[in-house]
């Protein structure tokens, strides 16, 4: 039981951290290493905003709203300009080259964050403690984790809805399917890319923002997330939404099991799962099949 709760809660966190990455890849075929930096920026933004919120004694319950606002700010202020003024001119280049550009961005943003917020940690645990606890199997959990799980569900469902039910979603799908043809059909691919990139970055920031209350916001907190969300996304199948969800769930569960029954192995869990899955399903659990006509 406890294992289940721990697993789900970690899965939710993994999903939130990784979903932005898969969205950006699915639409733009960019493996965004700077993803981790956006996660970090989300966390820092949250720290500042919520800090301001509480010091000015606004309604604490609205601070969750503040978290979202912070995330969207972080994502949309920084993300789109990068796409518009840097990445946009690189699309004809190889996937890997673009990946390296984002790696460079990651290095830069790491220091930018340091310049803006300094090296000392920030704490914004108020939202975390505000909600009180719940008991399961005489084990006490903060309700905040329910919030995280809920958030994960909401984000997942919203994305599903947008992709399948809205006009923008259909445009997106057609762009995913074939960039050139969609452009030829008069879809403003450029606009869609900027938007997607913004949303993807905001999702990363959102994960950061909602993690911030549970951690100490310090330099370098993005680095861990990069490789972790890579592992999740690749295991799920690059660009696949259900893939990320499933992969996050599997990894969360396996990890929880490890922690409770074989704590020494925790170190390998994630990458072993990834290697195993890739060994048997080279393109991940749910792969976007790419057929080539000859």
């Amino acid at each position, binding site marked *: 039981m406890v294992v289940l709760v721990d697993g789900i809660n970690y899965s939710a966190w993994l999903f939130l951290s990784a979903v932005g990455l898969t969205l950006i890849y699915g639409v733009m075929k960019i*493996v965004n290493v700077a993803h981790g930096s956006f996660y970090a920026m989300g966390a820092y933004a949250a720290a500042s905003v919520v800090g301001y919120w509480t010091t000015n004694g606004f309604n604490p319950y609205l601070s969750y709203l503040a978290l979202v606002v912070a995330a969207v700010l972080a994502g949309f202020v920084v993300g789109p300009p990068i796409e518009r003024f*840097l990445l946009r001119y690189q699309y004809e280049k190889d996937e890997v080259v673009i*990946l390296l550009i984002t790696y*460079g961005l990651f290095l830069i943003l790491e220091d930018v964050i340091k310049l803006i917020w300094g090296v000392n940690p920030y704490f914004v645990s108020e939202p975390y403690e505000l909600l009180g606890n719940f008991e399961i199997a005489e084990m006490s959990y903060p309700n905040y984790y329910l919030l995280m799980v809920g958030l994960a569900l909401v984000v997942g469902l919203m994305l599903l809805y947008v992709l399948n039910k809205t006009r923008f979603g259909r445009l997106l799908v057609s762009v995913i399917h074939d960039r050139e043809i969609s452009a030829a059909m008069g879809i403003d691919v450029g606009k869609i890319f900027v938007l997607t990139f913004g949303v993807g970055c905001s999702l990363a920031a959102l994960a950061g923002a909602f993690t911030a209350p549970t951690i100490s916001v310090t330099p370098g907190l993005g680095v861990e997330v990069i490789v972790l969300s890579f592992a999740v996304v690749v295991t799920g199948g690059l660009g696949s939404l259900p893939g990320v969800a499933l992969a996050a769930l599997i990894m969360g569960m396996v990890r929880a099991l490890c922690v409770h029954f074989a704590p020494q192995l925790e170190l390998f869990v994630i990458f072993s799962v990834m*290697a195993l899955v*890739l060994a048997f399903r080279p393109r991940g659990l749910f792969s976007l099949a790419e057929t080539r006509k*000859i």
Partner: protein
Amino acid sequence: MSIDKPIFRFAVFLGCLLLASPWLPQWAMFMITIAGANGMVVLGLMLFLRAGLVSFGQALYFCVGAYATGLMTQMFKFTDIFVLLISAGVMSGVLAYILGFLLAKYRAIFFGLLSLAFSMILYGLLAKTEALGSTDGFNIPAITILGWLPPQPLVRVTILAVTFAVMLLCLTFVNGLLRSPRGLLLTAIRDNEIRTEYMGASAQRTIHLIYVIAGVLAGLGGALAAVAVGHIDPAMAFWTTSGEFIFITILGGIGSVLAPFLGSMVFGVIHTVAFANSPNTWQMMIGLALIAVILLLPDGLWSLVSRMKKARA
């Protein structure tokens, strides 16, 4: 396999460098040694890039080579540089051969990320082996050459010389490979694998082959680095290390077998200048450098050289 002019000139140049070493600043010699070791790994990555592949886990073999060296010195008390190099090459080669069966099936980003997974697993394994000092790693004793223990003032020069020798050997080999039809095939695979298969060639076998070669090169690089630095730890297999190697590959370009060494030399300079001049923001410097290279010199530093060549011709 005959020696090409540029390689011959390079050899001559390295020779002069060795002769000049007494007058070279010590720290510069060390940086050149490290650049040489890194260059070995990057030489392998260059082969990958020729075939349109990028490995985010090449540090795996860098680390295996280093630890093979380390274990030789720890367990069997071998200190002879040749024994160490050979064992490093063999260890990494064998591992690459085995993993190759799996990885040669993968392309594009999946090739890169699967190799990343393997390098991170090795990192985990080493981090758990407290007998080998866990993440602290352990030190490598002074090396000998055929029983001769170089006296303190000569140690650095000796290691530098060995590095050069290994470099030149591998350079000549890889150059020969690239000049052979097999070398042509790399570009063919990158450009159009279907056509290549219908010409009757096996892309998978070719990739497996260069995977092993790259593995051995990385292993040798790791051994050289271990001997030069005198200390090894699991961080050698961490993904950031692989990232650094890819950076150098892009920096140098794939225009020539000499490009990797040009790249890693310049990387060394960028790195230390950034460290010394902006200790608090060196990452930004390196990031900017990386993006600048990709935007301004998409074919790497070597494109400058080839441009000069054209200008002369």
